[in-house]
């Protein structure tokens, strides 16, 4: 700043803040970088320093344990091998049987979710080594591809069509429960949906072979009344 | 400044023409696809007349009001119409959907085939759409369940995949 007219004009403010300048002059600015670096190193050292950290893999729970994330509360109850389960909406080819997981599920989101659509149970519950499940049906009244209302728990059966020889009674399955992220569309699209399933926990379940399916007779009885339940197959997530 | 404008006169004019043209051509093509992919061009036939489309003769069409049988479950304020359409195909088989009935006046409401709700009102062994692989002349008989306050004349619109974007519109008067 050039001395002269300007200094005169700003004389009063300058004097008023003179103490501030004097104080700031005494701050050892030159050491800032050094102090900062030391601080960062000390603090990070407390969390294990700069050593490579292994990304946390899926945890492990047991069958019957509840797993909760932002979207669902899920409890895998048992795994069943059965000759056929057409009431659950699964059709088989020659030499195939049905592998079914009985799961207690609750929708923790604020919108209804359909079990079979994207973001539904077929993405949330998978089996290691098998493709995505084929169908979902309620256990109580055999409603196929049920909607899950917020906060209303329901027991469902999730099914896979598998080769008859692939699994046997007593085999242990690795069931994977996946976390999904809420995606809110913007710009030219709209609505919210759950996408990108990422394995969160795994659990081991032993398969129970129930043969022709005497075990599910109760569910069969309920089915007749509900065979005509409406199910609109329009697009998925809430608008 | 004026020197710059003059020096770049050609590119400037080209930009002024090409930029809007780009939008017009792309947008126009999209709209053209939209309108040519659905029934947008009616070929209207007056009552008792027919219209020729793709070599097929559509019409004439007639409409009659039916008295429902005593045991028919119908809303109190409804009437049942039966529309009969003569169709004479060319050499090739013709396909179409069940025709819909439109009000030509007022609210211009639309009704679809009522062959489910008033199944007794269709013709015995007749179709409410084009029969499969029909090469001989045939008759479409389609019932409509319509509120009593709907008044003719009506238009019967026939939609067919092979006909789009044109479609026969047969005017009928009860």
């Amino acid at each position, binding site marked *: 700043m050039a001395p002269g007219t300007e200094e005169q004009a700003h004389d009063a403010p300058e004097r008023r803040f003179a103490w501030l300048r004097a104080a700031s002059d005494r701050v050892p600015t030159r050491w800032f970088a050094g102090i900062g670096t030391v601080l960062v190193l000390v603090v990070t050292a407390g969390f294990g320093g700069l050593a490579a950290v292994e990304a946390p893999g899926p945890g492990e729970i047991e069958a019957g344990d509840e797993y909760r994330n932002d979207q669902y509360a899920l409890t895998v109850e048992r795994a069943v091998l059965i000759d056929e389960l057409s009431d659950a909406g699964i059709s088989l080819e020659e030499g195939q049987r049905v592998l079914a997981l009985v799961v207690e599920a609750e929708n923790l989101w604020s919108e209804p979710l359909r079990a079979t659509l994207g973001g539904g149970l077929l993405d949330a519950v998978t089996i290691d080594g098998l493709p995505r499940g084929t169908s979902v049906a309620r256990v109580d009244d055999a409603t196929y591809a049920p909607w899950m*209302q917020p906060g*209303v728990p329901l027991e469902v059966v999730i099914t896979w069509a598998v080769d008859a020889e692939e699994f046997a009674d007593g085999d242990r399955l690795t069931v994977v429960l996946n976390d999904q992220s809420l995606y809110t569309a913007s710009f030219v699209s709209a609505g919210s949906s759950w996408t990108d399933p990422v394995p969160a926990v795994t659990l081991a379940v032993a398969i129970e072979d129930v043969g022709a399916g005497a075990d599910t007779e109760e569910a069969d009885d309920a089915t007749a009344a509900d065979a005509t339940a409406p199910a609109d197959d329009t*697009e998925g997530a809430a*608008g | 400044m004026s020197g710059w404008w003059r020096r770049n006169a050609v590119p400037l004019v080209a930009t002024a023409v090409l930029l809007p043209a780009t939008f017009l051509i792309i947008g126009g093509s999209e709209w053209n696809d939209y309108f040519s992919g659905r029934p947008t061009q009616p070929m209207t036939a007056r009552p008792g007349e027919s219209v020729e489309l793709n070599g097929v003769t559509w019409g004439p069409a007639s409409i009659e009001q039916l008295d429902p049988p005593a045991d028919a479950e119908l809303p109190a304020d409804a009437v049942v119409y039966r529309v009969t359409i003569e169709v004479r195909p060319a050499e090739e088989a013709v396909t179409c959907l069940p025709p819909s009935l439109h009000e030509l006046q007022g609210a211009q*409401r639309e009704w679809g085939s009522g062959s489910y709700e008033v199944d007794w009102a269709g013709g015995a062994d007749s179709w409410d759409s084009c029969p499969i692989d029909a090469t001989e002349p045939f008759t479409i008989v389609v019932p409509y369940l319509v509120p009593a306050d709907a008044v003719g004349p009506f238009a019967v619109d026939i939609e067919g995949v092979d006909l789009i974007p044109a479609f026969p519109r047969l005017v009928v008067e009860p």
Partner: protein
Amino acid sequence: MTGRARSARWLLALAGCGLVALAWVVMAVTPSDDATEAPFVVVSQLGERAEGRNIAVTVDRVVAAETLRDQGWEADGDWVVVELDIESVRSESGVLFSWASLQLGDRRYQASERPPNTIFGLPLSTGLARAGAIAFELPEGTLDEARVDGPAEAVLSFAVDREIRLDSLIELTVDLGTLESEATVELAPEAWGDS
């Protein structure tokens, strides 16, 4: 400083404040992005016919039930049963009763597809009303809580498409706390209604 300069400065300051206030008003009244595609809401009353672009609804009765029965089917829970007359107004080809929603707080429930004779999802007729019932399954305890804690306003909404943006949406507000209540409700069978 002359008087004129001083008053000019005051004027400037005032104008500045005015502009800030104006900017605040503009920000406050600017509709959200969602507003440009919001549905056209038609507010309806119990027993009163409400008409939108291609939907007309008369809600005749809203009743709470602990057990819902529909012919052979039966389920316990916190059910809200809505009896209504519904028709399409302009066209009926491909027009279904596709949207029936109950909004309670931040949660939205969809009419249950479980009762076999619900009219939710069924085709509509132009100018001829279908009468029937739909049912909402709410989390256990919701209705008791509403009765004890006082007003629990739920907004029912109806439309002909799951895509409700920029189309008519019929809305009806009910208080779950003072709702008529029955232990068992038999779902009203579908029939022709009064247009």
